Structure formats: C-alpha cells, structure tokens
C-alpha cells in the first residue's frame, strides 16, 4: 500500500507541544510528592475520561499523565503528578503563572457507552486514582445514567491518599455512591481499614449481575486486583484496566509501549481483561 499522496504535510507536528499556564497547584499528600496541577482556564481540547496528555517542564522531558478533571465541568485541565523522575520533579518546582508544554489528548479513554446502566466499582491504588477521579466525577454529573457506584481507594498510608475532600465528603454524599478506603499501613488516629487494596475489594465487593469494575494503579496492584475480581465472578470483559507504561511520543509511533500489535498510548491505555488476554503478557 502507499499513502504518500494524502500526507498531512501542512499539518503541525503533533510532537511539538503548545505552551499552557499553570493556574493552581494543590498538594495532595502529606509527603508533598503528589500534587494536582490545574492548567489553563479552559481545556484547549475536547477529551474523554481516561484519556491522557503529555505534560512537560520544558527542558526536563515529558510525561504521559491522565486527565484527573472531567470534561463534564468547565475549567482548566487537572493533572495529578507524582514526583518520580526528572520531568515530574521539575514540574513540582513550578507554580501558578509558570508555563508547561502540553499536547494531547491521547488514548482511547473509558468505554462510556458500555458503562451506562451498570453498577461500577472503581478500584484505584495510589496515584492510579487520578484517571478514575475523572470518571467518578463524570458519572456523578450524569448520575441517573449509571447504577450503584462504589469507589475503592487505597494508598500506602493515610497521609498518601489523594483527593481527600472528595473521598471523605463529596462522593459519600452523592446519591447511591459509596466510598471504601484502605491503607497499607495505618497510623495513630486512623480509624479506617488497614490492608492491601485487592484484599479489601475481595472482602467487600458483592458484585451485582450488572457489575463492572474499573481499575488503575501500579502494575502489581492491577494484577492482584484483577485476580480478586475474577474470583468474585466478574467476567473478563467487565474488568476494565487503565495501564501505566513508559510512553514517549503518545501517538503510537516511537515503539516504546508496543505490546503485540497494539500501542498502549494510542490503542489504550484502557483495555478490558478480555482484550489483554489476547495480547502477550508484557505489562
């Protein structure tokens, strides 16, 4: 095949970011290692929950980060960023008024049509809650469209939980919505559950016939949470994962996130367990 006569030669290079301005920085955790950045007054592009964008402290690299905000509300894009590598540490040095490089939106996002009418369990470990937060708020903004919502959120310690106001006040007050929080290690004053998130889900989730689960977290948590959900009787096509993987171009070209004939940045990052079962196990 040849596609040389229909090349988009006049279009802008998708690898070149636009410059956007940080409006607000919110410290999420006691350690200060996780912060939410509000970028711009409005999103420069339309997006769906579960999609990602490349965020760059110019000069320090780029990172693929899920949108933590929901398109159902106006305002800027929100990204919750953990300081782990060079670019994310550099982002943490920035404050309101500073510029960042931004390009996107990338990826498929959550299968919203397939979630309509279903009972949804959200299972988010650590920073993995960020993409799920977009979806939880999206569902709450159109509450009648979805069944029972249960948010399972886990973190290493109480001080490392993200979105604490939403977890403790906003979401529990929403209709037919329950929030279940667990931490790996408790601390004085913590009266909630102590234990690993997959075990907590296994012990508490009573799946309805309409149950789906949406899972995000570090690879090892995703693996154990998936096993727990399968044991609870969820079908592989009803367990929806959003994957974390090294990505650089975000557009399915640089080869970094290639698994089988899929590129996680472009064809994912959202896959069902059934879809992943047809791919080599390399996550």
């Amino acid at each position, binding site marked *: 095949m040849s596609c*040389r006569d229909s090349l988009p030669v006049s279009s*802008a290079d998708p690898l070149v970011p636009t*410059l956007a301005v940080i409006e607000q920085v919110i410290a999420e955790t006691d350690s200060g290692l996780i912060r939410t950045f509000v970028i711009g007054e409005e999103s420069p592009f339309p997006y769906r929950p579960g999609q990602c964008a490349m965020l760059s402290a110019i000069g320090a690299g780029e990172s693929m980060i899920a949108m933590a905000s929901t398109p159902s509300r106006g305002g800027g894009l929100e990204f919750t960023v953990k300081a782990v590598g060079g670019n994310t540490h550099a982002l943490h040095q920035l404050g309101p008024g500073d510029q960042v490089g931004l390009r996107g939106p990338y990826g498929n996002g959550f299968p919203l049509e397939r979630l309509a009418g279903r009972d949804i369990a959200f299972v988010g470990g650590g920073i993995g809650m960020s993409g799920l937060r977009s979806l939880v708020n999206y569902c709450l903004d159109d509450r009648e469209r979805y069944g029972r919502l249960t948010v399972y959120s886990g973190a290493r310690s109480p001080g490392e939980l993200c979105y604490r106001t939403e977890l403790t006040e906003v979401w529990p007050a929403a209709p037919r919505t329950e929030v279940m929080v667990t931490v790996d290690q408790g601390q004085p004053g913590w009266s909630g559950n102590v234990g690993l998130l997959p075990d907590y889900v296994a012990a508490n989730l009573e799946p309805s016939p309409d149950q789906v689960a949406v899972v995000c977290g570090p690879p090892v948590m995703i693996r154990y949470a998936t096993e727990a959900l399968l044991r609870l009787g969820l079908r592989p096509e009803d367990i929806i994962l959003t994957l974390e993987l090294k990505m650089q*171009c975000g*557009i399915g*070209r*640089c*080869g970094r996130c290639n698994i089988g004939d899929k590129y996680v940045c472009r064809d994912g990052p959202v896959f069902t367990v059934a879809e992943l079962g047809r791919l080599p196990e390399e996550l």
Partner: protein
Amino acid sequence: MTTARDGSPRRRHTGNLSSDRLGALARAALAVAGPDAVLWAPRQAAQRWAWEPITSPDDLDPRTWRRMVNTRISPKGILLPQTQEVFSWQGRTPKIALDVPPPPQPAVILGLRPCDAVAFDRLDEALLVGEWPDVAYARARSRAVLVTFACESMSPECMCEAAGLSPTTPSGDLLVLPAGESLLLEALTAKGEAVLAELEGREPMPEAGSLVDARREELAGAAGHHAPGLAAGQDWTRLPPADPETVLAMFGMPGWEELARPCLSCGLCAFVCPTCHCFALTDEPRGDTGRRVRTWDSCGLTDFMRAAGGHDPRPAKAQRMRQRFLHKLVYHRAAHGSLMCTGCGRCAAGCPAGLHIATAAKMLLAAAEQVAQDALSGCAAPGRPQEDPQ
C-alpha cells in the same frame, strides 16, 4: 490501463536510456522534487558503499554500481534522520518561546535497492497510517523521489526472497533495470511518471516495454544463483496471519532464551535496519535555551521500556530480542498485512554476536506449524488453557 503503486490509473510508461545519461535522469528527478532538492546516491569510500549528497550528477557512473550489492548503511536516515530537532526553546518560564525547524529539503534517492525502497513502504505504514501521522517523516517522504535500481548481483547475506521480495521488485517511484549499456526505466507512481515525462522533454528516448519484462525475468533468474545464506529456502510469507493463539504460542516459545544468549544488546541490528523506526525524545537544555531532539532508538536496548520509578516489563535481553523479531515478522503484519523485514541482510551481516533473523524465522515457522497441527488434532496449544465449551 493499469494501476500504479500509488493507486493512480495509468498507461504503462517505460523508457530506454543509455547508461552514460544517468546524469540526465538525476536532473529530471531533481526537477520533479523541487528547486532546492538534494541528490543522494551510493558512493564508494574506504571499501564501503555509503549514501552521499551528490553535487555533480553528470559524474555518476551506474557501471560502478554493478560491484555494489548494497550500501553498508540503509538510506532510511535520508528521510528519517538519526537525530532530528523537534523544536527549540528560548527563555525561562514564564517567558518561554518555542520555535520549530524549517521543513527538510526534498531528496532524490537514486540507486537504492528494491529491499530498501520497499522498506520506505513499511515505514509509511508504521509512521503514517492512523489518527496521528508522524508529520516530520511525512514532510520528508512526500517530497522525496525514489529511483530504484534492480540488483545485478546478490550476496549470501541477501534474504529478500525469504521476505517475499526479489532483486527486481517494483518499488520506489521509478524502477531502473540495468541491461548492458542501457538503463531500462519503468514509472511506478505519479512521481515516477513525472520524472519520465521530464526526462523525455530533455532526451529523446524510445519506449522499452518488452525489454523491461525480459530483463526483469533475466535478473530474477540470475538472483537464484547467489551463494545460499541461512535464509535459503525459507519463505517468511508462510508465517500465518497473526491470530491471538498463534501469536501467544510464538511469544511463549522456549527457544528465545537460547537464541538471545550471545546478544550484546548493542542495538546495531536496529540502527542498520531500513525499517526499524523506534525513536526517543530527549531535551537538550543549554542555559536559557535548548532543543528537544528525536533520535533513533531500539526496543532491543537495555531500559528501553524502563519507566521513572523503575518498572520495566522487558528487563531481560531475550524479552527485548523477542519483541524485535515478533514486531518485524508478526505484529506489523497483523496490523498492516506486510512483513516489516525486507531481507536486506544488514542485521545478520553486521551482528558482532553472529545472530541471524533467519534463525528466529525458522523457530517462528515451526511454532506456527505446531499450532496448526494441534488445531487439526484438537489439542490446545502448549501453555494455553483449553477454552471452556460453555
């Protein structure tokens, strides 16, 4: 009427040019590519053939190319440079300004072999098909004119036949079949048509239709007589369409570890490959300015997938080698219908550890055959749970 490689309906357009008029062909191609076009052709230097920019097309002598099986390094880098600026910046936040580099000069690539010309078709699939095309490559590719020279000789390293190609595979914009003192030309795309039309305006030239067919048959036959390499007798196009069960069986083959043992993870195979296209993006700050560059990378190199925080799905070299071979021979085919190896042989010729893609292909063909046999006899593939009949 027939259909050109780029899908345009056309009348067959051929020409018979004296081989001492190669300069005129080069000038016609340059005229089609544009006023600031650069001519690239193979030139021998220090015992190696290399791609070089040519400023005096009339000095080109195609007779010297008969001694050349192929260039040491593929022409990939002419359209997909090893290092390429994506953008530059000036100033610090909140006063950063970005600047993008000018588009590349158009290129005429004259004298490339069919394996390397077909490789650009594979790059087109990998980089241009889909929602977010690689615009930097698209800009270079859309303005390039590819003049392919059929091979008059082959080496044991040549594997195009295993990859389903031949020394005369119609590829590029214009195919040239050298025949003694003649160059038999056939246009393959609208660009190739334009080059022939331009040339005809400069040089009186007879049609060469039947001569082209006869010479193509001759060269195809001659190609079979080269000394056989490891890929002799293999047919990689027999690898089955990549249904998930077969892919997982190939992925799970026990032989990968053994195959990868001598590998040095040096990345040479990817860097000499005309179709490998993995790249890295790196920021190069210098004071208050800097640039983001895109450079060749390889899925075979250590830490290719390592994320900040340390997670690496392919920490072992056998895992990375498996990825490279499966991407070339299986995954790309599943997505685009074609093998992402054109059999140029550079990886095998250059590998310091003596690794050979034909060894991997042999294993894959055997694994695929096993899956097919198991399906016939009703067994599940090894390592895969049997489907629940419910």
